[in-house]
């Protein structure tokens, strides 16, 4: 682990340890009371889910078209994080929905498209794990298609149904709610970068060991 990763990890850990106090200090919302506070973890993880998906798509494009071997490690790391943060988003969302809407799941545009994007990245990981030799390129093609598909999924599902609170809620939040929210976004971003760097580094080292083994076999 590099020193900068270690510093970021310590910082992220410290921020997450303090997060409950920050969230507790935020005022209760008028209609939903305490329940809305899951939003402080839900929204940052949803954002990281999107960032991870886009990062994986871009890294895959670099791997495929520019033939950068190291980009594959980044794509895989980002793909795994997309599944991780996606799972987190899809667990915290229904927990809130149960209290706010009275049901665990609604076929709302944002929920459904998040679920579909999550499915695409689960399929990506399954392909990487069980595809056998050459699955790095197949995975790259899939992640690239997945990224290109996001607007289509969103538009089609949006036209099909809509319930979710609008995104425009964020800039209108009162300051006492806004501070813990941005605090949590920062903590999640740090966590995302730390995990991405560690996982990509691991993958690069694995690729190097594999290359060394191949060299050893040849000699």
């Amino acid at each position, binding site marked *: 682990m590099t020193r900068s990763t270690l510093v970021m990890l310590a910082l992220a850990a410290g921020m997450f340890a303090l997060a409950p106090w920050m969230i507790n200090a935020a005022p209760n919302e008028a209609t939903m009371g305490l329940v809305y506070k899951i939003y402080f973890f839900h929204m940052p993880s949803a954002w990281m889910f999107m960032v991870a998906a886009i990062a994986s798509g871009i890294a895959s494009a670099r791997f*495929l078209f520019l033939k950068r071997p190291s980009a594959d490690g980044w794509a895989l790391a980002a793909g795994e994080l997309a599944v991780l943060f996606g799972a987190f988003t899809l667990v915290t969302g229904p927990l809130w929905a149960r209290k706010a809407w009275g049901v665990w799941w609604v076929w709302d545009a944002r929920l459904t498209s998040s679920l579909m994007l999550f499915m695409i990245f689960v399929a990506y990981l399954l392909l990487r794990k069980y*595809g056998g030799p050459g699955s790095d*390129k*197949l995975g790259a093609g899939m992640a690239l298609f997945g990224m290109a598909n996001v607007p*289509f999924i969103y538009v089609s*599902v949006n036209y*099909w149904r809509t319930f979710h609170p609008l995104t425009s809620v964020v800039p209108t939040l009162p300051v006492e709610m806004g501070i813990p929210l941005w605090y949590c976004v920062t903590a999640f971003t740090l966590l995302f970068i730390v995990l991405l760097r560690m996982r990509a580094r691991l993958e690069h080292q694995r690729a190097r060991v594999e290359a060394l083994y191949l060299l050893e076999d040849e000699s």
Partner: protein
Amino acid sequence: MMRAFFRVAWIVVKKDLTIEVRSLEILSTTIFFAVTVVLMFSFGLVVDGRPLNDVAAAILWVAIAFSGTLALGRTFERERHNDTLRALLLAPADRPALYVGKLAGILLLLALVELVLVPLVGLLFAAPIFVHGFHLVALLAGGTIGFTAVGTLFAAMLVRARSRDVLLPIMLYPMTVPVMIAGVRGTAALFQPTPDLAVAQFWIGLLGFFDVVFVTLALWTFDPVMTD
């Protein structure tokens, strides 16, 4: 340049058609499979002898997706058998032209399947398939091209992969969700007692856009992903 491209594509189509015409293996099995899918879903979705709302459109598109997956898998299994895909890739031809040839062959196959499937659904569910025939054909064409464009690329990529049979639908279905939604909603709008043409046209437009983006992307990625 352009002529050579389409000539290669046409040769691939002709090759696939010649093989298929001799045995009719993929066509006959896929059509029969599509018919069984329609029946299986009918038993689940017809209550007291009456189909649920919009069920005809849903069953039609699920059957297209399932039989499309089967046709894609079988077509490339054939190429895998004697490692003929490698021979195709070794040929001094544009890689994207090979993709277009494969895509056209599978599209033709699925068009024939739909020629049986659509009248069957119309018959079993009293769906007005001829009232706005042009819109229905546009939806079917747009949806099938979108589904097959992604599917042909994925099936080709998976030829050398392990567990390809299960990986193809796993990768293909989440990716073609927009096609399914557009196809089902558009067709359902046409099958209503008073057809909603504006809705159908919106979905036809979305499908057209999807097709353009994904055919372009597939042409673009086919070469790098198929290179060893």
